[in-house]
């Protein structure tokens, strides 16, 4: 094959390249088009890896492999012009790759594994006795920055920037640790949603087989922040001490992020309105009034060096935690404020049911042109949504590099390379290894059992 010229207009690249706006993830329609996407799917999208992942070892030769497994998984495509096609299924890697290349979906969603091939669900329904129902599904979480609009002042809605992104970092740290340490899961994939949030896929066999009730219980365990538009106090911490999970979360993650980052970067106590919002969380009105009084007083006599947010926070803590406030509720109040401003806000419905769809990693977000790359939870503090590769950048990189790579490894030449390498080495390979072991041991157990019953 001769080297193809990739159609990228250089002007677009300039817009994307620099300027003050680059610190924010904004919609950039110029960086996305069906033509670009075709090339992306043809040369860069790690289709084979995704197929491997979702096969969970069932595509191998082991006698315990369930060859119907991947064919029962639902995929859904959002095509150009918002055409939404549900219940796609693929029986092998080729089928999947061809469908993606041919249909060039703007978005690929992954659904559950059903009892029967979802594409043939009507035929089964007519046959009668076969129920079409989800039987396996990763435990998933969806955290969306637009749910944090009441605690960030830098952007709102779908926009994110480096000042608010730490809220996502917190979410990843808190949840990843709980999923591993408390629930004992090992195969967890975090991915950037392409615009304003993160997705989490828990892929252990044990997680995939959870019932809806068990999923709900995990989501509830992790849920502290209670939304609902008509409820002003969203965090209620009761009991004389915190549950070990919450206590650890507070001291190891939330407190540090709140005091060292968000307090100043979001200027949480910089204006009267913002102060009021925090004071509303203090149940004792006289204390709230006293604080407000003081803060109004020291506005002019600004304590020169110290940041006003920090100074005010220290005063608040001092009053609420001083010996005078024996009352439980008031001491807990400092923690409640920190939880309200930092604790992960989950979309509960996504996690509670098996049949929710979630966007596949490595898709390209049509509005921003950014790729949904995996995020390393151990270094999530370094993740920068504003430097995530965009579709047009990647194609430019392909164009620029003169060295030829193997056709199946073209991504090596682009900045997507490190994401794919990370996906393989820290998620896919360990996952497949343990799938194999699990398969082996359950197969042996079965053999053992049948042997026993024979000899008996």
């Amino acid at each position, binding site marked *: 094959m001769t080297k193809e010229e990739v159609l990228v207009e250089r002007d677009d690249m300039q817009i994307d390249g620099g300027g003050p706006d680059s610190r924010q993830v904004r919609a950039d329609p110029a960086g996305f088009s069906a033509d670009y996407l075709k090339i992306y799917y043809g040369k860069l999208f790690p289709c084979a890896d995704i197929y491997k992942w979702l096969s969970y070892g069932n595509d191998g030769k082991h006698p315990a492999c369930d060859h119907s497994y991947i064919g029962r998984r639902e995929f859904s495509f959002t095509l150009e012009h*918002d055409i*939404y096609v549900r219940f796609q299924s693929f029986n092998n890697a080729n089928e999947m790759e061809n469908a993606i290349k041919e249909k060039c979906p703007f978005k690929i969603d992954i659904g559950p594994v059903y009892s029967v091939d979802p594409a043939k669900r009507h035929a089964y*329904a007519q046959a009668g006795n076969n129920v*079409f129902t989800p039987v396996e599904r990763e435990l998933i979480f969806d955290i969306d920055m637009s*749910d944090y609009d009441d605690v960030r002042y830098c952007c709102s809605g779908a926009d994110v920037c480096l000042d608010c992104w730490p809220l996502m970092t917190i979410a990843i740290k808190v949840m990843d640790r709980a999923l591993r*340490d*408390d*629930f*004992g*899961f090992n195969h967890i994939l975090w991915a950037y949603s392409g615009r304003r949030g993160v997705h989490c896929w828990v892929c252990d066999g*044990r997680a995939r087989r*959870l019932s809806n*009730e*068990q999923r*709900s*219980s*995990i989501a*509830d*365990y992790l849920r502290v922040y*209670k*939304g*609902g*538009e*008509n*409820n*002003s*106090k969203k965090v209620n911490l009761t*009991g*004389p*001490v*915190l*549950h*070990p*999970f*919450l*206590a650890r979360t507070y001291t190891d993650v939330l407190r540090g992020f709140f005091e060292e980052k968000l307090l100043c970067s979001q200027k949480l106590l910089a204006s009267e309105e913002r102060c009021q919002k925090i004071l509303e969380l203090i149940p004792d009105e006289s204390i709230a009034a006293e604080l407000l009084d003081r803060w109004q007083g020291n506005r002019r006599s600004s304590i020169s060096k110290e940041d006003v947010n920090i100074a005010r926070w220290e005063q608040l803590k001092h009053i609420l935690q001083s010996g005078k406030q024996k009352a439980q509720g008031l001491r807990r109040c400092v923690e409640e404020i920190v939880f309200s401003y930092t604790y992960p*806000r*989950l*979309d*509960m*419905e996504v996690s509670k049911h098996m049949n929710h769809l979630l966007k596949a990693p490595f898709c390209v977000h049509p509005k921003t042109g950014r790729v949904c790359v995996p995020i390393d939870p151990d270094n999530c503090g370094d993740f920068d949504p504003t430097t995530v590769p965009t579709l047009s950048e990647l194609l430019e990189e392909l164009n620029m590099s003169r060295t030829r790579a193997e056709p199946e490894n073209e991504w090596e030449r682009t900045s997507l390379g490190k994401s794919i390498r990370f996906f393989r080495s820290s998620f896919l390979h360990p996952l497949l290894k343990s799938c194999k072991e699990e398969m082996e041991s359950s197969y042996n157990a079965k053999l053992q059992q049948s042997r026993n019953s024979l000899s008996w």
Partner: protein
Amino acid sequence: MEIVRSQRNLTADGPPSLSLYRSAPSLEVRLEDFELYAIDRLRVLKGISDGISRGKKPEEMEKLVSELWRANMRHQDASEVTNKDMISHFVLRLVYCRTEDLRKWFLSMETTLFRYRFRLESPESQRMLMAEFQLPYKALSNAEFETVKDKLGQVARSIGQSSNAETIFFKVPFEEVPELVASRRVFLLKGYAYVAMNQVVSLVVTQFRSNLSKALVLTNRKWTSTIREQEKERLTPIVEALSNSYLGPDYSQPKEFAEISLKDIDQLASNSFPLCMRHLFEKLREDHHLRHGGRMQLGLFLKGVGLKLDDALAFWKMEFSQKVGTERFDKEYAYTIRHNYGKEGKRTDYTPYSCHKIISSTPGVGDHHGCPYRHFSEENLRAALGKIGVGSRALDDVMDKVRNRHYQLACTLTFEAIHAASCDTGINHPNHYFSESQKILKSRIQPTT
């Protein structure tokens, strides 16, 4: 527990009186008893269902269940009590195995009943029941206990219990105690939950529930394949009558006021919608949008009060198109509306949500569904009630009920205040609220015409 235990001693010395209902009794049953026993048990289950939807706390539920049981399941002959328990349970399995909704209801009520009866058993017979379930759990060894002792104490204190070195703990996969996990009442480490002896009920209940759930599916199969036909003359009519007479209407088909038309809808909303629906309705008019939970709650309610499919489509379109445009509405939202009316997709029947379901929902950021009595802050609720014309005295009564978590009673009081009429049946379904309201309003118009 202490008091309960001594009470127990009067009745049971020896094997527990609580049955796991493993197999149907091979007893001779007189046909009248068959029906009577079932009705008595239904009274217990209905009482439990009411208790749950009133938001009763565990201690209150425990008391309620033991009272209900005593009042309805007693038998002059003590040895007959166990028989009655068995027979009535298996009869109701037949009655409630036949649809998904019936099974769900029965499963949840029987499980609750079992839970509280288990709590009333002595520790001795509790342990025997655990053995009967063949739960493979071993008590935590001393060495292991030492390594997690502090955390276990911390959990106990976090739920307001004193930590006790004497307590026996079991280490079980977290999947088996979902309710303890959900409420953070256990310590979790690497996939295991550390369950204290006094929480064991949760383990047993999970087991009970999953056994019963499987059994119901089997019973359903047997019912459709053989029993219904075989018992055509004898049991089938009884079974069918039983389920109808006791579940109450499900409001999936509008009945009394057959149809409402689009032009009346604003007036109906302000006169006869309960607060939960009125709030959604107003938010929709205001924002021209509702998130999924809100669309389902309001949409099914409207179906239940008699808004026809075409009108429903027109109604939602009118609002949503202002926000997302007509095209997107047709593409993304029209489907679910048709779906709710059973016109598209799998034709499961989408019944309007009951208060119980609404009260136990979990609205998130940006959501407006749920029950205002439960999900609004006190301040917002007061404002909302004031706006619809609840006077200050009535308002205090309503708030009082809310504080005691009697949400449906609060709703009933609101109904009475607004309509200046009593509502003896109480509110247990938003569509019920609507039909009661219409009944009163129509009766007031009639005399003048």
